[in-house]
């Protein structure tokens, strides 16, 4: 089998995000960028499937600026086989991403597209589902467990009510949740090997996709600062304050 793993370059999870002074977006200049953590889990899962002998090839795809090559290299250093960079400098939204991925699927014919359930920058949680619709494939979203059988996948999903297990006929889309696995470190020998793995460079136009955003961001603002708390002297005062605010 062949697995395709789309990965997104995002502001590192542990970086304190700052809103630009003109409120058009968040500050990206000289900010630490890393692979979207959900996508990292997807790469790890693909590698585990390969190590289990279920998968022969893993292709990592990223749509973004030239620097997204580094994100692809991270995937290759973890153990993926080759990469595709769709170079795109401007803002891009899930539907355009899904259309480009559909184009790549048409050329690569993977059996599984394994991707993060959402990216931590825009939190859209749409790309996997849109891609499933565009391709007419089965989808197992929010996966916390993936088991490959002949011609199908058993995917355990994290849903509001608990866990739900679905059986998907291949080809299929799987989106990953946090508890699926613990991604591995990139070892030095593998980082060096990754430098020799091929990365194809494409553009949205190569797949006939118009990636112009359909949504316009009007304004980005910091959330309101949390108000300072107060100290009360007694239980009576506490109850009084809660009543005053209409909370009890």
């Amino acid at each position, binding site marked *: 089998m062949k697995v395709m793993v789309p990965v997104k370059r995002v502001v590192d999870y*542990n*970086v304190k995000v700052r809103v630009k002074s003109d409120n058009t977006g968040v500050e990206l200049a000289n900010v630490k960028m890393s692979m979207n953590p959900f996508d990292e889990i997807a790469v790890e899962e693909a590698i585990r499937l390969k190590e289990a002998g279920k998968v022969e090839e893993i292709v990592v795809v990223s749509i973004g600026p030239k620097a997204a090559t580094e994100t692809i290299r991270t995937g290759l250093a973890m153990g993926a086989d080759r990469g595709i960079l769709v170079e795109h400098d401007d803002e891009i939204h899930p539907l355009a991403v899904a259309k480009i991925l559909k184009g790549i699927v048409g050329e690569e014919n993977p059996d599984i597209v394994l991707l993060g359930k959402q990216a931590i920058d825009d939190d859209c949680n749409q790309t996997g589902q849109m891609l499933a619709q565009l391709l007419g494939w089965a989808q197992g979203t929010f996966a916390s467990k993936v088991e490959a059988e002949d011609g199908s996948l058993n995917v355990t999903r994290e849903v509001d009510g608990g866990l739900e297990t679905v059986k998907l006929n291949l080809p299929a889309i799987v989106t990953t949740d946090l508890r699926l696995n613990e991604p591995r470190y990139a070892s*030095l020998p593998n980082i060096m090997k990754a430098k020799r793995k091929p990365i194809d460079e494409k553009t949205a136009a190569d797949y006939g996709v118009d990636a112009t955003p359909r949504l316009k961001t009007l304004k980005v603002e910091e959330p309101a600062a949390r108000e300072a708390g107060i100290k009360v002297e007694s239980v009576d005062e506490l109850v009084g304050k809660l009543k005053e605010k209409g909370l009890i």
Partner: protein
Amino acid sequence: MIEKSHIDHLVSLLGPECATTDQDRIAPLLREWRDKYFGHTQLLLTPNSAEQLSDALRYCNAHGVAVVPQGGNTGLVGAGLPGLANRDEVLISTQRMNKVLDVCPNDYSITVEAGVTIKEIQQSAETADRLFPLSLASEGSCTAGGTIATNAGGVHVIRYGSMQALTMGVEAVLADGTIYSDLSPLRKDNTGYKLSSLFAGSEGTLGIITKATLKLYPPERHRITTWIAIDDINSALNILEKLRDVTADRVSVFEIMPHSGLELVLRHIPSTLPPFPGKEFPWYILAEIGSSIHDPVLEETVEDCLSNMISNNQIADGIIAQSEQQRLELWKLRESLSEAQKHEGGSIKHDISVPVSQVPEFVKTVAPEIEQRWTGSRVIPFGHLGDGNLHFNVMQPSTMDKQAFLANWEEMNRFVHDRVTDFSGSISAEHGIGSMKAQELKRLKPASSLHAMQMIKKALDPNNILNPGALFTRD
């Protein structure tokens, strides 16, 4: 006992807010976190200004009342606790002097009151897009004043120096109540003795620091963090040399720990993962290269440098963190070691340094000597290899009673300190002397140095009221 008249006078001088005899309020400041020392005192002063402290010290000096200053109470040598060895001492905490006074990005300086924590200083610097580089395990509690008086070190000393190097000026109240003040951010000032430096490592024996001006640096917005496995500790020096060379000397961290240390961490600390699953190596290095800009070329240079060293067998294996999350995971392996040791049982600790070039030889020679002499003990040397500072800790034999093992503390200290001296090293690299190592200091410090220290002490504190138990022995 401190005379009641002195206590009453000091309380009336500072007022009930800033002076208390309430043992419930005092008690938390008398406990040391390792439970090695328990202080006692009748009176706690928490002055909110140098002027208030000056009034108090003038009175104490005139009446021979001894005082012990305390910052965050994170010290490891008993230097900040009053009443040890049954002395009568007033505890003076800087906790009320807790304001950041000025951050000047263009001077690359920050001026703070003595009771501000290192963490708060780091955060204030970050807000101004600057780095305050001192970083140590207790940074959330330890204070500017305490770290200067201890001349604390931590993990960034290889690149930025210890607290002494980061201190541009101090304000301090001397024994007679004089307020010495030099908070200038001048980088060059050759107008006589650099008196502010005198307070570094003074442990509260020369004056009580009330404010400080500290150095800031450009931020390390991007860090390359690597966890390296080596078979022979000798390779560590080659790796350090190569990394400093190829990164234009931007190595900010260079820490070492043995496999036995990693094992303790994985065994005792939750959510820690082995960096090399299924593989073991004798030694690990945590190295970090910091840069204010994102520099892919620098990353590639480091990768090439390290992989070349794999090719010529200097490095056995390695990891480079691919995200801040992975970086923090690797750091946790190093930073949890002290705590993991605590869970494992008793350990006898040595905070030593030797010249960097001597670290491998010291470890290879002295660790087997100890393990032979104290059968079943396990030496777990770890720490800041980049600046020659090792925490040369010795774990108890697993079958031995903890207290029985700890009874060897002083004898083993003397043995290790003798060997450190043979290697031209220091018996206290970053924790200080306090009362814990005062005897050892007297035994091993050159007589001429001790003499000069005593002359300075006598000149500034003739009545010996400032932290009389620290640094010097009584006789």
